[in-house]
């Protein structure tokens, strides 16, 4: 068993998530490596100490504020549903009909017009549209068809500013989407938010998570573009894991380029 596997099992054990079978494996591994056993024994003290940290109770003010908020929402209820709500519901419901594509087309067109006008009405409108686009993007990104998810991530790359929800959705897509083309498209949209430290650290983390050379090569390109020196360690680790081939060469040249940048 590798050190990493022992650690994983031990973490399961202290969290009470371990199965009997794994417990047995862990016991055997620790017998074989007493040096870990001692260390883990010590760490367990720290782990247990957490139980003693207490969190205070919130003041009654918190509950009162929530009550106020909820009744304000209740008051809104008789009003017909929010315009965006209705639209999103329509999009979700009638998705397959393809009307939505039309709506998106119109809205995307609509979005480009205000760009050159500075009038405050239009600016307000464009903010609303941006918000709508964001919500639609977050809806689309969960569609079962890969084509729809690609539309969503492309849309995310066009948003005027990087909302944390959008960035998170893109990172999740980069790391978890079952289709590689969608993952790559998510990466391309993330690259546009190169100012965000969150994006940079997500790309470095992704080096560890991703397995396909298609994605790893694209991440390497992005890191060169970002001149992200913080990624060198992770790149070297990945390079050393690979025995040979095009990906190994690519990672090696990437490290060199970032060092020189």
């Amino acid at each position: 068993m590798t050190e990493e596997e022992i650690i994983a099992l031990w973490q399961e054990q202290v969290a009470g998530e371990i199965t009997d079978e794994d417990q047995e494996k862990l016991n055997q591994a620790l017998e074989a490596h007493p040096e870990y056993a001692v260390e883990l024994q010590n760490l367990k003290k720290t782990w247990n100490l957490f139980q003693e940290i207490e969190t205070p109770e919130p003041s009654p003010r918190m509950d009162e504020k929530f009550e106020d908020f909820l009744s304000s929402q209740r008051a809104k209820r008789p009003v017909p549903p929010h315009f965006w709500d209705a639209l999103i519901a329509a999009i979700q419901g009638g998705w397959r009909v393809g009307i939505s594509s039309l709506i998106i087309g119109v809205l995307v067109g609509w979005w480009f017009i205000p760009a050159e006008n500075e009038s405050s009405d239009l600016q307000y409108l464009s903010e609303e549209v941006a918000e709508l686009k964001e919500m639609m993007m977050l809806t689309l990104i969960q569609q079962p068809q890969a084509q729809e998810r690609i539309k969503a991530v492309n849309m995310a790359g066009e948003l005027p500013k990087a909302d944390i929800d959008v960035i998170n959705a893109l990172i999740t897509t980069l790391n978890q989407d079952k289709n590689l083309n969608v993952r790559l498209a998510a990466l391309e949209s993330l690259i546009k938010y190169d100012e965000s430290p969150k994006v940079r650290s997500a790309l470095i983390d992704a080096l560890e998570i991703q397995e396909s050379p298609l994605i790893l090569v694209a991440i390497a390109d992005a890191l060169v573009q970002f001149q992200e020196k913080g990624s060198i360690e992770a790149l070297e680790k990945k390079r050393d894991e690979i025995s040979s081939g095009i990906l190994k060469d690519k990672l090696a040249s990437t490290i060199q380029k970032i060092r020189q940048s």
Partner: protein
Amino acid sequence: MHLLEDHSLMLKIRQGDVEKLDLLYRRYSRRLFGFFFRMTNEGATSEDLVQNVFVRILKYKHTYKDDGDFEVWIFQLARNVFKDHYRKNKRYAFRESMEPYEQNLGVVSNKQQELERQEELENLKNALDKLSEEKRELITLVRYEKMKYSAVAQIFGVSESAIKVRVHRIIKELRACYLGMDAESDLMSKSLKKE
């Protein structure tokens, strides 16, 4: 566990049944408060942030998936609320007085051996404060909120095994850090004796 019920409540909210938010508030407000308190050390701020999470639930209800995991989702919202707050306020200029909240803490036992334990605990708390935001979030969710690794992995968007290794490293870092503090205070007391 309320997982199933949470999920169906949230689906009702998504359809516009705002009233159901009340139940979710009762189930999650204390946990969220605990999370924010660990992250900010500020009681009043934490209360506001809890409120923000519930406002966002309504704002982003459309994004909740049919097969969603509500616990994962609400803590994702909570992390984002915290990040936005953190971005706006950059660093906390000073800590507000914690008095009113410390009164709410359970009664501390006065036994002698408890004192040592308390000291170690203080050191651990200080060590926690020194962790980076991301690490503190992670350890709070795992150790304090007692979330399953699988759920935390979803929140952070990384693999479960990566989470376990990270948590392990943090525990190690914490231990090294607070034992370091102990060593420092030992040294100090020794040098005091010399004088």
